[in-house]
């Protein structure tokens, strides 16, 4: 059995970065609070001993509120890891040391890590770790997860704690007399209860006084009733908190020397980025640049892949001759999978832009800027942050809602997040926009994305009206420091996300492509208009006739339910069955669509049924399949109505 070491600390202090450095894993790291939402484990062998590290969601204090905070609290209470490492940020230690004091009250064998020491040094902040060790009675290590400084020392110290039998960390702070009296009395009572022997009595007593819901319940189950009034709990809580801060302040005076008197770089930039009036146009500019990058800059690379695929197809056709096998490989696999792979550069570009925003620290600023707007939608900026993540993929966006404290707001955010255009829908837009709106691609894509955000906003108003009444919880979020992303981190980010897309291409898209090929080729050996696929599409076509979709589009929509990229695979097969070169795909599509139907189709794809993975995520995160089915039904109706409006209005204009 490996010994277990848990990493806890405030959000965004670098726990996961440190965890990655310690274990060689590649867990998700980004510059905003609340990235890690579930427990992650990794093993490190060190000097012949196995140590299991556990990375946990960030937490401000042990009085847990949101779901991710509960995960952490419950872990350190119930799982009793051998060592708890409290990680604090070198440039923002107070809040972290507060947590340290709480953990120290709760258990033994605690260590302190002061991370991001590289940034502190750059700013002329010096930290004396011996002072920290003296005042908190814990081993202390200064680390930088980015440069790797202090990681070896940390491992050695952990090993030392694991091997030596003595109990570490013995400092206890004393509260004002009236609190101590009360604590002592409660401790007396708690000592008598056998069931509570696994807890530190003093910790239970302090939590009891603070009015911690979970501890109150625990004690109640052992027959200890809460006879203290709400106001008194409030009073104790503030007495206890101010004593802790007082203590921390004295320690900080001894341990930290700083030459900071000027405004910091981050503050200076924030003056503009979070400006009342400038904030919004700046956010839009960033978005526009991101799309320009995704489309214009990446386009030539897409074309390169496109012509590569076409050449490969031609070559295979020559080598293999005519026949169904050739058609399977060339039309089915190369057409279907290759048709999607063409957009790999765009998708990587998109992730590069998103990764930059996340690592730079812009995301929480954007949330802050739109918080006032969001308030009108009865949501907070925190939801907005989750939604932006959905531009990459809706699944992590839905996961990240665990950081939203208010359950009502969390549910609404989960329900509306599928409307945010994820990267899987990008190939569909790009294909149609490329075919019908030549020369205006970046602008069109930008508008489509904006519409997807407006749709999300309108939806949340609607859900709010239908489901809930109530006021949103105002956004309280710490803005992280701006950080220039390291090339390595950025590349890892892009690769981890992009890889997922490639894996999809090799699995679900490949299978879907072969299936579509079979349905498109048989029964009449390649006569697409009498194929099974045609029957299928034509059967449903009447429903979509008001929208002007033909059977090929309908078939594409059906297959696109598995993963939205498959819409593109279907198109490249149904429009590419005649062995023309890939460039002809655009022409074939342009012949079948008008700009209005193309737009209607794009909006339909934007809104209709989330992919399977997203539906599953909605079910698991909202806690019931009911919501998942609602979401399917709702998005289908919205998609239909939206497309209809576009066709009608477009018809009037054209």
């Amino acid at each position: 059995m490996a010994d277990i070491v848990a990493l806890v600390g405030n959000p965004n202090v670098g726990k996961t970065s440190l965890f990655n450095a310690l274990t060689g894993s590649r867990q998700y790291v980004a510059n905003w609070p609340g990235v890690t939402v579930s427990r992650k484990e990794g093993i490190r062998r060190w000097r012949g001993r196995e140590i299991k590290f556990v990375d946990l969601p960030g937490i401000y204090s042990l009085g847990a509120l949101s779901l991710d905070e509960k995960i952490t609290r419950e872990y350190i209470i119930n799982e009793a890891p051998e060592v708890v490492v409290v990680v604090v940020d070198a440039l923002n230690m107070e809040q972290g040391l507060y947590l340290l004091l709480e953990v120290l009250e709760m258990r033994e064998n605690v260590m302190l890590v002061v991370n991001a020491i590289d940034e502190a040094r750059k700013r002329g902040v010096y930290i004396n770790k011996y002072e920290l060790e003296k005042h908190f009675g814990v081993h202390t290590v200064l680390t930088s997860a980015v440069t790797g400084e202090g990681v070896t020392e940390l491992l050695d110290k952990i090993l030392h704690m694991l091997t030596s039998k003595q109990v570490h960390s013995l400092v206890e702070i004393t509260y004002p007399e009236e609190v101590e009296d009360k604590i002592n009395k409660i401790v007396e009572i708690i000592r008598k209860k056998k069931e509570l022997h696994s807890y530190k009595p003093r910790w239970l007593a302090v939590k009891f006084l603070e009015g911690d819901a979970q501890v109150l319940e625990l004690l109640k189950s052992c027959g200890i009733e809460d006879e203290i009034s709400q106001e008194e709990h409030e009073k104790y809580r503030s007495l206890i908190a101010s004593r802790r801060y007082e203590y921390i302040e004295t320690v900080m005076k001894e341990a930290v020397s700083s030459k900071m008197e000027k405004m910091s770089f981050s503050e200076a930039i924030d003056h503009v980025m979070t400006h009342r009036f400038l904030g919004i146009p700046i956010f839009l500019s960033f978005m526009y640049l991101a799309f320009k990058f995704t489309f214009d800059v990446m386009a030539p690379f897409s074309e390169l892949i496109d012509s590569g695929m076409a050449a490969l197809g031609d070559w295979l056709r020559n080598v293999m001759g005519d026949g169904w096998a050739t058609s399977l490989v060339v039309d089915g696999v190369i057409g279907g999978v290759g048709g999607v792979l063409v957009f790999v550069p765009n998708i990587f570009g998109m992730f590069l832009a998103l990764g930059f925003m996340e690592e730079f620290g812009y995301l929480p600023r954007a949330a802050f800027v739109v918080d006032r707007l969001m308030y009108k939608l009865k949501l907070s900026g925190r939801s907005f942050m989750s939604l932006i993540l959905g531009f990459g993929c809706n699944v992590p966006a839905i996961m990240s809602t665990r950081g939203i404290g208010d359950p009502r707001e969390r549910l609404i955010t989960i329900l509306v997040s599928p409307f945010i255009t994820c990267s899987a829908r990008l190939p569909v837009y790009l294909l149609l926009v490329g075919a019908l709106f030549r020369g205006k691609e970046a602008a069109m894509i930008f508008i489509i994305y904006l519409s997807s955000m407006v749709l999300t906003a309108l939806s949340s108003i609607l859900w709010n009206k239908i489901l809930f009444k109530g006021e949103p919880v105002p956004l309280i979020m710490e803005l992280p420091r701006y950080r220039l992303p390291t090339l390595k981190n950025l590349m890892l980010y892009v690769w981890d996300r992009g890889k997922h897309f490639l894996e999809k291409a090799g699995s679900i898209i490949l299978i879907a492509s072969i299936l579509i090929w079979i349905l498109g080729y048989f029964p009449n050996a390649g006569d697409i208009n009498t194929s099974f696929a045609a029957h299928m599409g034509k059967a449903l076509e009447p429903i979509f006739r008001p929208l002007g979709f033909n059977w090929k589009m309908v078939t594409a929509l059906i297959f696109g339910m598995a993963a939205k990229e498959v819409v593109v695979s279907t198109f490249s097969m149904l429009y590419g069955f005649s062995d023309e070169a890939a460039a002809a795909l655009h022409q074939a599509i342009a012949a079948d669509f008008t700009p209005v139907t193309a737009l209607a189709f794009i909006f339909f794809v934007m809104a209709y049924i989330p992919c399977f993975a997203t539906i599953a995520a909605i079910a698991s995160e909202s806690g019931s399949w009911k919501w998942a089915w609602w979401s399917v039904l709702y998005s289908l109706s919205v998609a239909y109505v939206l497309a209809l409006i576009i066709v009608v209005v477009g018809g009037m204009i054209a």
Partner: protein
Amino acid sequence: MIESFLISILGGGYAALGIIYIATGNILWGFLTLTLSAVYFFGFEKVLGSGKEHKASHILTGGIFALIASGFLIIEWLVSLLSEPVKPTTVDWWFLGVSVVAFLGFLFARKKFV
């Protein structure tokens, strides 16, 4: 003194370029350029007591933006060489010119912060 001078030059310069972009049909880039101009002009607003530091923060941020935007223009040209080359227009050249000044402003403002 230097702060106000830089803000006037850069804010004015980008405003003019933004209007020209929009007039020539490049609406989105025009919007971008006007935003850039606004970043400078809002530096005159006195929210923070210390006017000088406040202005410097706008010059700093404007410089970063200008750098990113110019980077985009240049990358776009370079990449377009691979397929259909895009010719930079006169306004684009002016944009780059003003951005050089913006970058110098950035270097100047950088020293005021840690």
